[in-house]
């Protein structure tokens, strides 16, 4: 009888919550329904938001210092020539399905990612000049490259190159992405495409990197739901349907900031800035002075205030300010100076000779073809740009196109101006845009010197030396006025005050859910 009484009392105590314990559940709002969510196959940033907590990576990057710290690899060595990386793996790590993690598993994963049959859309290319993986012994593995590739550790610290259970991959085949198994602090519980994705706490997790504050996750469950329509995001937060919401529209963020129930966590995303590439091979933009006139004649601050309510900073150059190797000296170029823009155009013979408000030269009006995509407030930005440029006497033909068509236009060089933005924590992100052979060389630049800096930056492992190369690239891009940078990307996360300890990795997109707790 007494035993029963004690039991009841204990049960009551537990139920009333006077014993502090981990637990609880949050709903995390994602902003686009990913096309596919296998990190080895697919490329979206969205998939990494949930899956960063399902998987572990060989190394992690400390957001404070930018240094790489041990993850599934306890330590590593890089050969003198930068081609061979030897990783010494942590012991006693188990995948969620009980499969032991070892060197064989690492090789299995890298073989999978680099297999042409998998048709990886991102992970494969993050490995650069990858050659092969060798198992040295059960807990030592060697990655061999064809040539040095400095971004390798950065790549290996991302979910796209995370370690998946070989047993599960073999068991599920094509359907693996619906049944993912990692070693991370949360277990992939259920995914209903377009509906929700649910993660459950992994109670056995004990091998987290030093950047995690807790040994195991505090939350019992995290449910991800999709809020593709921006207008539905802040209502979902305010109605309590979601506890965290990514990419809240700026005007809603301003309002939520003043609401004591919520806070806005604005996370600057490293990578390229949002920039309009100027086609240097197509007249009149083949003239440096005309490109410079566009830069001087654009009031970017006004655009950011109008469209983004000053929630993101004006971009000075091709790299976002929070990116490794960003060179702040690019901010000295092109302050807003419409008088100077006009003077430059006059100097080059662009005058309004027929009085129609549009400048002309040799009977040709100063007309620019601007192609843009429908995302990221680009249509609104374009409207403001057109208004500003019309003031300068430039006529703009703007057209919105879909991404595949934009790629084709960019490749064929049919545009004068076209925007793009790309996330990434390594400055090597510049190579695809400004190397003469880059896949998105929309400025149509062909500068052997810059090609050389970009290749040296990719091969050099010493950070300072790398940064020197990238400084040169950034300054050259602005001196040559290859792009019109607009803004650094900032992800405005709306967060309920009951959610504590939300932090993001270096990429800015991916939350470390292990440390999230609920306020009582």
């Amino acid at each position, binding site marked *: 009888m007494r035993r029963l009484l004690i039991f009841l009392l204990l049960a009551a105590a537990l139920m009333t919550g006077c014993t502090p314990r981990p637990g609880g559940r949050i709903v995390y709002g994602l902003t686009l329904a990913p096309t596919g969510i296998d990190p080895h196959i697919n490329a979206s940033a969205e998939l990494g938001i949930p899956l960063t907590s399902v998987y572990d990576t060989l190394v992690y990057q400390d957001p404070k210092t930018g240094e790489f710290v041990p993850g599934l690899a306890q330590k590593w060595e890089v050969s003198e020539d930068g081609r061979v990386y030897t990783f010494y793996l942590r012991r006693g790590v188990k995948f969620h399905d009980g499969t032991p993690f070892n060197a064989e598993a690492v090789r299995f994963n890298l073989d999978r990612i680099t297999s042409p049959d998998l048709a990886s859309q991102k992970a*494969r290319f993050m490995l650069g000049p990858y050659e092969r993986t060798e198992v040295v012994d059960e807990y030592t593995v060697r990655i061999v490259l064809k040539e040095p590739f400095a971004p390798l550790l950065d790549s290996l610290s991302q979910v796209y190159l995370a370690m998946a259970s070989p047993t599960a991959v073999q068991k599920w085949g094509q359907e693996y992405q619906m049944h993912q198994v990692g070693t991370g602090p949360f277990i992939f519980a259920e995914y*209903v495409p377009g509906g929700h994705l649910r993660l459950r706490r992994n109670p056995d997790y004990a091998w987290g990197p030093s950047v995690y504050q807790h040994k195991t996750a505090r939350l019992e469950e995290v449910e991800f739901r999709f809020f593709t329509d921006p207008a*539905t995001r802040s209502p979902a937060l305010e109605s309590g349907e979601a506890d965290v919401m990514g990419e809240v529209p700026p005007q809603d963020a301003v309002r939520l900031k003043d609401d004591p129930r919520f806070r806005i966590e604005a996370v600057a995303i490293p990578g390229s800035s949002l920039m309009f590439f100027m086609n240097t091979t197509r007249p009149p933009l083949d003239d440096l002075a005309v490109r410079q006139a566009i830069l001087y004649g654009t009031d970017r601050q006004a655009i950011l205030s109008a469209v983004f309510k000053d929630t993101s900073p004006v971009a000075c150059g091709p790299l976002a300010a929070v990116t490794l190797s960003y060179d702040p000296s690019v901010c000295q170029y092109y302050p807003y100076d419409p008088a100077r823009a006009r003077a430059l155009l006059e100097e080059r013979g662009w005058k309004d000779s027929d009085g129609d408000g549009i400048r002309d030269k040799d009977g040709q009006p100063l007309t620019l073809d601007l192609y843009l995509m429908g995302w990221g407030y680009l249509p609104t930005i374009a409207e403001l740009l057109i208004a500003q440029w019309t003031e300068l006497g430039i006529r703009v033909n703007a057209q919105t196109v879909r991404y595949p068509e934009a790629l084709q236009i960019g490749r064929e060089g049919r545009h004068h101006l076209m925007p*793009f933005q*790309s996330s990434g924590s390594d400055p090597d992100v510049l190579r695809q845009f400004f190397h003469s052979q880059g896949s998105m060389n929309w400025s149509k630049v062909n500068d052997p010197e810059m090609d050389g800096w970009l290749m040296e930056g990719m091969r050099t492992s010493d950070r300072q030396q790398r940064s020197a190369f990238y400084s040169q690239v950034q300054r050259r891009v602005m001196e040559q006025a290859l792009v019109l940078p607009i803004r650094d990307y900032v992800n405005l996360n709306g967060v309920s005050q009951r959610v504590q300890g939300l932090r993001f990795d270096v990429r800015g997109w991916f939350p470390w859910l292990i440390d999230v707790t609920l306020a009582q």
Partner: protein
Amino acid sequence: MFGYGLRRLLEAVLVLWLAATLAFVAMQLTPGDPAETLLAASGASPEEIARRRAQLGLNDPIPVQYVRYLADLARGDLGTSWLQGRSVGRMILERLSGTVELALAAGLVGIALGVGLGLLAALYRDTWVDTLAMAVAAVGLSTPVFWSGLLLILLFSLHLRWLPSSGWGDARHLVLPALTLGFSLSGPIARLVRTQVVEILRMPFILAAQGRGVPLWRIFLIHILRPAAGPVIALIGLQFGFLLGGAVVTESVFAREGLGRLTVQAILWRDLPVVRGIALVGALAYLLTSLLADLCHAWLDPRLHQSEER
């Protein structure tokens, strides 16, 4: 009967081939290179993109691609999604339930609303009830779903806050999309029901039945509704294609997961196997429902039996 079956089958094969060919041609005409779309932003070099293009078979002459595609289809192989690396058949099956659920719910709403409006209009012919009912039907007929959908969201989600505006899950998420799509379906149904019932009411057998003292409800069910139902069902069968197409748009408006969203995504990413697969499944669904509707029609309307027997 055998000849009829054979003709139906040949028609079906022709429709499927046309749908497959149209999907193929349409995607050929759409600008943008699939391999580039998949890889350009991931830091892949132009050589790597070219390699992927070859791997996807996009470098082959277009007639070769077309024949290979038809040969795969003939074997029942819809292929693998270039975007997700999963079987297209499986992806379509997974989403089909969402679209069928919406199409069925919208079909019910459309039939209930359409038949109700049509009956009202017919029974109160040439009164203000008739005018009003037919006006509502005309609005339903002529309002595009993306517009009526937004209006319903404004009213029920943002203003009254009764129902969720978007998403997918329980029955509450189904109400607004089903109303939107059902409303636009109700227009043609209401018009047809009105014409049919008005016509039947003029028939001598109605007067005869009344004269024999057959109870009103019986006249209504047996003598009016049953013969009127036949053409209406045939119409619904024909409207099913519209229903599927409308479901695609409706799903986009309400951010519902289903074939519609899969289609949009596949077109945006130039995921050709998925686009083609959906076109084919749509054609197949259309064929099946029109066959079903024809059979129902024949079974329900005694006049058709007679003409066949003669």
